[in-house]
């Protein structure tokens, strides 16, 4: 047998000798240190990238990162605890300015309830610091593991949004370091335009270096929670209207698998602050150890393993069963009953099962959260839920809340309702899910709705622009150019929705 001699056919370049080539050594400043290169993932585990992560502990440290980015001609994405479901804090291949180590509480006045914190302080650290003095954060999310810098950047909301608005309405002042290096103090009266634009600007205008928040006075650490069943979407919305005035917190759970006449069935939880007069030892309820969520189930089973137990059930059959069981339990023995819960237990439902998102491994999940005016909510959300079922991708978790509008520039709340839908990503549904999300966006847009960027993974730039409105978009781009003329602050989310921030926006 004759083997071929090595020939140029093994190669794909020239057979000729190469010309001498002097190695061109690039200046060291042309590369960022690979030592800082880390994997950065969205909380929904649906996307990840590499980024050069820097974790400053001081304002000068942030300035150095700004300077580093300019020298290397790269952009910066701000990141707190990384709790946004999508790519809001993902700056792939650029600098990730992780503020989680700027986590000092700078000032606390237990008489007025005013607290000043650095942006990396988490909600958990905040409420544990103040509850003993009888103060609770005015607005909390479903998890306590967000940073307040991130919360302000997204202007997050809670189950009491219909009464107290988003977090921004309780921020009395903040300091923001603009990419230009200028440190600006803003209050609703001092620099009001920047105040109302920076809160909710998803980290595009500058980096909060301190935030002063007015906490909420509480007499006890307890809430009375009444759960009522609704057998369809109309009934669900009626329960919201009936309970809106009399409750402090209002949230609904929807069985996303219910179809036909039962579309939108679920359970509404209305919660009210418990006054001291109704509790034997009110101060006891304000102790942090009495608020902490238990770390075992029934005092025996470590909750850290629960997601592994739930994983085999995390499929359409298991979740259909669990949703149906939850509705049956809530609509028969539990209907109309009032239970007393701690603030932490009621508000931080997402923390009840540690690492629960891992049930969605390996491809993760997406959440679609939309906000629709009250007059269009029933029709729109019925069509949304039906569209999910027609696509054969029922949401494993569906949550509905009531909202009111606010005055921030990038505002997503309106006088109406929001519906948050959790979808698993699987190898089989990937493309169908993408199509479905686009369809849901169209339905929401048609109803005059809006979107919350902390949850978003898939909006198109045109859909977001339409939901934002031309004038708001123009104002935002104008203030972006004023605060960050070099477009230093960018993330994968901002690039998806705004490209590289068009310089010709004024003529659009």
């Amino acid at each position, binding site marked *: 047998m*004759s*083997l*071929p*001699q*090595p*020939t*140029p*056919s*093994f*190669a*794909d*370049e*020239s*057979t*000729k*000798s*190469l010309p001498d*080539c002097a*190695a*061109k*050594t*690039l200046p060291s400043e*042309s*590369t*960022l240190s*690979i030592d800082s*290169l*880390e*994997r950065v993932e969205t909380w929904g585990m649906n996307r*990840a*990238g*590499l980024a050069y992560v820097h974790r400053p502990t001081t304002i000068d440290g942030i300035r150095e990162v700004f300077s580093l980015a300019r020298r290397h001609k*790269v952009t910066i994405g701000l990141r707190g605890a990384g709790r946004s479901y999508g790519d809001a804090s993902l700056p*792939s*291949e*650029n600098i990730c300015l992780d503020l989680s180590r700027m986590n000092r509480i700078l000032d606390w006045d237990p008489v007025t309830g005013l607290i000043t914190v650095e942006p990396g302080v988490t909600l958990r650290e905040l409420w544990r610091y103040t509850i003993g003095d009888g103060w609770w954060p005015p607005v909390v999310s479903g998890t306590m593991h967000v940073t307040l810098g991130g919360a302000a950047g997204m202007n997050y909301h809670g189950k009491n949004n219909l009464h107290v608005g988003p977090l921004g309405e309780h921020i009395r002042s903040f300091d923001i370091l603009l990419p230009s290096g200028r440190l600006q103090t803003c209050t609703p009266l001092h620099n009001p335009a920047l105040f109302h634009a920076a809160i909710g600007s998803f980290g595009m205008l500058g980096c909060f270096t301190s935030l002063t928040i007015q906490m909420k006075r509480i007499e006890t650490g307890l809430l009375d929670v009444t759960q009522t069943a609704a057998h369809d979407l109309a009934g669900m919305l009626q329960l919201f209207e009936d309970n809106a005035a009399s409750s402090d917190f209002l949230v609904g759970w929807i069985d996303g698998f219910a179809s036909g006449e039962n579309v939108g069935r679920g359970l509404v939880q209305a919660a009210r602050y418990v006054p001291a007069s109704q509790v034997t030892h009110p101060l006891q309820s304000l102790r942090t150890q009495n608020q902490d969520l238990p770390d075992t189930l029934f005092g025996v089973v470590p909750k850290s393993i629960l997601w592994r137990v739930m994983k085999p059930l995390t499929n359409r059959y298991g979740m259909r069963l669990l949703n149906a069981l939850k509705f049956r339990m809530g609509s028969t023995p539990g209907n109309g009953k009032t239970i007393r819960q701690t603030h932490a237990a009621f508000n931080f439902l997402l923390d009840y099962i540690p690492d629960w998102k891992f049930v969605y491994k390996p491809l993760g999940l997406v959440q679609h959260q939309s906000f629709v005016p009250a007059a269009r909510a029933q029709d729109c959300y019925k069509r949304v839920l039906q569209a999910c079922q027609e696509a054969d991708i029922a949401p494993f978790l569906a949550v509905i809340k009531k909202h009111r509008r606010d005055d921030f520039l990038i505002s997503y709340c309106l006088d109406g309702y929001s519906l948050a839908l959790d979808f698993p990503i699987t190898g089989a549904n990937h493309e169908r899910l993408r199509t479905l999300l686009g369809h849901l966006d169209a339905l929401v847009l048609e109803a005059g709705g809006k979107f919350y960027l902390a949850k978003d993974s898939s909006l198109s730039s045109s859909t977001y622009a339409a939901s934002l409105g031309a004038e708001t978009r123009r104002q935002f781009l104008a203030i972006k150019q004023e605060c960050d003329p070099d477009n230093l602050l960018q993330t*994968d989310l901002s690039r998806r929705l705004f490209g590289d921030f068009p310089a010709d926006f004024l003529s659009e």
Partner: protein
Amino acid sequence: MKWQRAVVVGASSGIGAEIAKQLAAKGCHVALIARREAELVRVADEINAAGSHLARIYIHDVREYEAVPALMQQIARDMGGIDLIVYSSGIMPAIASDEYAFDKDRQMIEVNLLGAIAWLNEAAQRFERAKAGTIIGISSVAGERGRRGSPVYGTTKAALDTYLESLRNRLSRYGVEVVTVKPGPVATPMTANLDQKTLPLLITADKAASAILSGASRKRSVIYVPWLWQPIFVIIRAIPSFLFRKLNF
């Protein structure tokens, strides 16, 4: 499509160009790297002709090792990340059976081996951190045994095999796939002047590229192109050295 953003080093012709075209045909963004600008532009134009704008070009001589980290960072930024890197640069100057030309040998080591190490070391660090990624190294069946024809060409490919195997053993625990490709003779413009009949199991570059991408997407560690070379080389590797040196290879 398993990959969305690929770097192809040595993309101006042959297997590299075909791999780039086939990746782009499935919607993958490709960064084309080579030193010959005109040829590279031609490949990019062909890919982008459909209006997809999936191909970017970067003029680079793989012997400019110090430029690799910065160029890799630039490419990663331009594409938003890298999922796949293919190193297919290689040279094999004609060498007579009694010729010992150090200059040519050094160039082969620089392009076939050191260039690969410069690029793939950089990729390995990135993929290890990302806990994902695929590395494809185009080696050759010429690295299987030390043959008479071109001692240093075979040496570079044998060294590349060992290097890729080491990368595989380092990176598999992080979910990174490292693929060693061992083509036999492949018909490219450069083989046009050779007697095609003397080249056994000759295949076209597009078929080779197709086999490589198909095997890599199925997580094959070592791919012979065409597959028949694998059993053939099982036999050839078993030939004792004292016999092998008497054969006319």
